[in-house]
């Protein structure tokens, strides 16, 4: 069985139907990229899956721990980098303090932030903050990691460092669902791409399939990026 199954998901805000019958599966180790125009419902889909939003109908089957990386990081400004990463594993997951700290140091090393343990989020660049937030999510040992436009709040020159981190995670077979506007990156890192428009999945397949699709909406959307 798939790690995550979404079946016939529907969601409206008042009379604005945002998700119209969305179904998808994510396998263990798979990297799924979700692309699509603004307002197509990508964030709402992630928010329903991660319980930040209540779906109107449909089924979400997932057993395990997930992490969510936000567009604007949402680090806790009053906690140091280390506390941001370790507090939930210790308090919520009741894990051993020493083990959690070791884990956090390993993750910070992986993110190239070993010297920032005691820094506060406001002392870091956007790219560094986003790497801390990825480390915070990973510290929970998630079975799946969701990203909602993890580079959209970053200056172009900082985008690359986050994309590299995500690529490294893909190489380690982390299961990930990534909403992104970075087409080249999606094509490069994803096993599967979903193109959403207007609350429906218009195209789904391997990057090559989706990017060479004859679907007019897909072509119009991609055209905007290549102009």
């Amino acid at each position, binding site marked *: 069985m798939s790690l995550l199954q979404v079946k016939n998901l529907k969601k409206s805000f008042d009379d604005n139907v945002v998700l119209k019958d969305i179904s998808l599966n994510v396998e263990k180790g798979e990297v799924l990229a979700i692309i699509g125009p603004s307002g197509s419902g990508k964030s709402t889909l992630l928010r329903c899956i991660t*319980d930040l939003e209540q779906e109107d109908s449909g089924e979400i089957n997932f057993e395990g721990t997930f992490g969510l990386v*936000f567009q604007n990081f949402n680090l*806790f400004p009053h906690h140091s980098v280390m506390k941001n990463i370790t507090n939930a594993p210790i308090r919520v997951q009741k894990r051993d303090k020493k083990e959690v700290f070791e884990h956090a140091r390993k993750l910070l090393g992986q993110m190239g932030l070993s010297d920032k343990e005691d820094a506060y989020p406001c002392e870091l660049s956007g790219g560094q903050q986003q790497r801390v937030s990825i480390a915070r999510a990973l510290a929970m040992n998630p079975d799946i990691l969701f990203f909602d436009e993890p580079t959209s709040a970053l200056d172009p020159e900082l985008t690359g460092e986050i994309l590299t981190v995500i690529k490294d995670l893909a190489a380690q077979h982390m299961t990930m669902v990534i909403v992104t506007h970075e087409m080249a990156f999606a094509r490069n890192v994803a096993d599967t791409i979903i193109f959403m428009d207007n609350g429906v999945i218009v195209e789904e397949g391997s990057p090559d399939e989706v990017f060479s699709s004859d679907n007019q909406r897909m072509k119009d959307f991609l055209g905007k990026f290549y102009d």
Partner: protein
Amino acid sequence: MMLSKVIELLLGGMVTSIEIFLLTLLFSLPLGLIVAGGRMSRFAPLRWLAKIYISIMRGTPLMLQLIVVFFAPYYVFGVNLSADYRFIAVIIAFTINYAAYFAEIYRGGIESINSGQYEAAQVLGYSKLETFFIIIMPQVIKVVLPSITNEVITLVKDTSLSFVIAIPEMFTVAKQIAASEASISALLVAGLFYYLFNMLVAFVMERVEARLDYYE
């Protein structure tokens, strides 16, 4: 009367002023949080109740509230309360008045926190209570501290209103001396004491603010 005698009497009154000040803060700071909770509740009747309470407390003179709290048991309920009630009435009146102001300050602070903070906490598995006390409240305290400081400084001066129900705090004492001596020197000394008291309050609050300055 010798100046030293005046100062001695005033210092006696000041002890009462400080008691009123400290007890009011002790009760009104937490009560304000509860009122703010009511004011932001999803349960409409509770929200309205808190709203009406706040608007009455802020919309009528504190001096009048003092008198009402002091005389209400007798005139409304016909109960004769002991002499101690005089002091208790002052604490009740100040507490319910200041709680209303603190509630609005807390509410502003809580509403200033980005919803992403709640969402990040939820995704990390924090309970509602943990989210409030570990993630939200520490940030709120930093945000509201300057406004709280303003209220605390006002409270120092407001303690003098207790004279309307003849509590022997510093201002009441100063007024009595001034009347019997036909001189305002006691009032001037009292003014100096209030000023020094507030210098101390400002100093302490500045230190607290500085301690919370480790992040933006």
